Structures are given as C-alpha cells and as structure tokens.
C-alpha cells in the first residue's frame, strides 16, 4: 500500500535508516551484553569496575606507599546481605544531595568536608564496623576516594557500592529524605 505522504524514495530511506539503527543496536548489544545485563539485573556492571580504574588512576597520579588498601566493590544484589550483617551506609555526596534523598539508613559524610567531620565520625563509629560508601552512581569517584581515606584512618572493612543512589532509587529500594 502506497503512502499518500511519503514518496517511494523517502520510504526507502526511512526503511534503510531503521535497518541501520537495528544493526547498530545488535552490534552494540552483542559486544556489551554482559554490561547491559548486569546493569538491568542489579549486579556490578563489569568485571573491571570503577574501583579498578580509580585505583590505577590513583597509583599513577600520586606517590603512594606500598600496601595501600583499596575499598572492595559491592553490587546492589550483595548490599542487602551486608546491611543485614550490620554494615553502615555512608553517603559521600554533598549535604544538599543527601537532604534531597539518600539510601535508607545512610549517614552523610561528604568527601569535601571529610577533614572537618572525621574525628567526630571516628568517635561515633568503631574501627571494626563494616562501612559501605556510595555517591551518584557510576562515574562518581567520591565514594572510592572516601573509602580509601577511611581505610587509611584504620577502618578494616570498607566497601564501595558503585551503583550509588541512582541505581538504588530506580530499583525501587527504600530511600529517605533528611527530614524523615
């Protein structure tokens, strides 16, 4: 059936454009299937998480002592288990972001004001407590850097939840606002 609006040439161009798009999507999904699957199933997004990338960048950018520890990455799927074991969630974003919404039960410890708050934090939270830092999801380095700092301060179990607030919120997990 011929469309009265589109000429055969235009319809052919549109059809080829659609085929191009489908082809590119198939190639992209084929090459990155695991990444996309993990993202939709709430698992760590790849075998080489941001923590690895960040640790490499850190070792290249700064002179660091041998044996410096890096926080271990945890996925959303693993987070519930650690929280049940008594882990403390730490929001490394700004106070404003924390007030607008954070993971239920998380405490605010912005990386930017860490020096000012660290002593108070250490008095309230024992070094043996398991800590899980997070920030604004993938591409946000603050949670990793906060994790490194907390390990340097003597905390023994520090992990990073890379999906952060956006993944948690979009998965329908419990979130809170600061005034709740």
């Amino acid at each position, binding site marked *: 059936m011929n469309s009265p609006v589109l000429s055969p*040439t235009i319809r*052919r*161009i*549109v059809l*080829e*454009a659609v*085929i*191009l*798009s489908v*082809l*590119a*999507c198939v*190639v*992209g*999904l084929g*090459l*990155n299937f695991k*990444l*996309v699957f993990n*993202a*939709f199933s709430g698992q760590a*997004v*790849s075998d080489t998480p*941001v923590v690895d990338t960040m640790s490499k960048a850190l070792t290249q950018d700064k002179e660091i002592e041998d044996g410096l520890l890096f926080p271990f990455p945890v996925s959303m799927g693993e987070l519930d288990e650690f929280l049940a074991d008594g882990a403390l969630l730490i929001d490394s974003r700004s106070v404003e972001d924390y007030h607008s919404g954070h993971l239920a039960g998380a405490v605010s410890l912005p990386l930017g004001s860490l020096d000012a708050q660290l002593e108070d934090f250490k008095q309230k939270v024992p070094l043996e407590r398991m800590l899980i830092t997070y920030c*604004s*999801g*993938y*591409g*946000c380095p603050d949670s990793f850097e906060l994790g490194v700092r907390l390990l340097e301060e003597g905390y023994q179990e520090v992990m990073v939840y890379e*999906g952060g607030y*956006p*993944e948690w*919120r*979009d*998965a329908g997990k419990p979130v809170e606002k600061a005034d709740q």
Partner: protein
Amino acid sequence: MTIIGKITYHASRLILAGVFIYAGAVKANDIQDFAGQIANYQILPYAWNYLVAATLPYLELLCGLLLLLNMRVRPAVLVLFALNLIFILALLSAVVRGFDIDCGCFKPDAQQPTTPLAALWRDLGLAVLMIAVWLLRYAQMPKEID
C-alpha cells in the same frame, strides 16, 4: 550541481563523518564512562543509561563510516539528524535545569569539559551540515534510491 555545490556537499559530508566516527570511537572505547555521562543528565532510569551507552556509539560509528564512504548517505544523515534532535533536547533540558555537567559528546574524561550550552550550539551547527548534505545529495542524484 555546480562545483560550489559539490565542494559544499563533500566538505559537509566529510566533516560529519569525522565528527561522528571520532565521537563513536571514543565512546565505544569506554562504555561505562559514557553511561556515567548519560546518567548525569538524570533523564533515564539508571540501567537504561547502560543500554543507550552500549548501542549509541555503534550507531554513530556506522553512520559516520557510511558518510565517509559516500554510501547510503541519506539514510545515515536521517539517523544522525534524529540523534542530533535527541541530543539537542537533552542538552536543552540540562540547560533549563541548570546542570553544570560535561555534555558527554566526545571523550568522557576530557580535560576541558564542554558545557551543555556550548554543545547545544555545536549540535545546531551539525544540524545545518546534515540538512546541507541531505539537500545536496538529492540535487546530485534525485532519482537514486540513496
């Protein structure tokens, strides 16, 4: 078509090819970083950022290659024009919401990030080139399929 028309057509086509092959290649090289850049716009649900990041670079690459090879030019330009419209809408939403983010148009960890407003002007310029390529391609071979 006049010689000026031919020069304009090929110059526009090659500029677009270069821009989108480069953009697609650097994004495809680091899909996770690109997903983070898309997430900064706060438009899509979290996991969908990865779906877009996994497919969009290959669409840009494919269309850029077709433009470079001067094959299936109008289908490629149509796809890129549609993408460009989506980019412009996303950038507009970032500007309106006052987001101070890197546009994520090219290299994800660029030393000098491009603001959404600057990227908006660049995308409008690319749209003009796309329209030029479409029209001049038609003038060159109006009865051809492509």
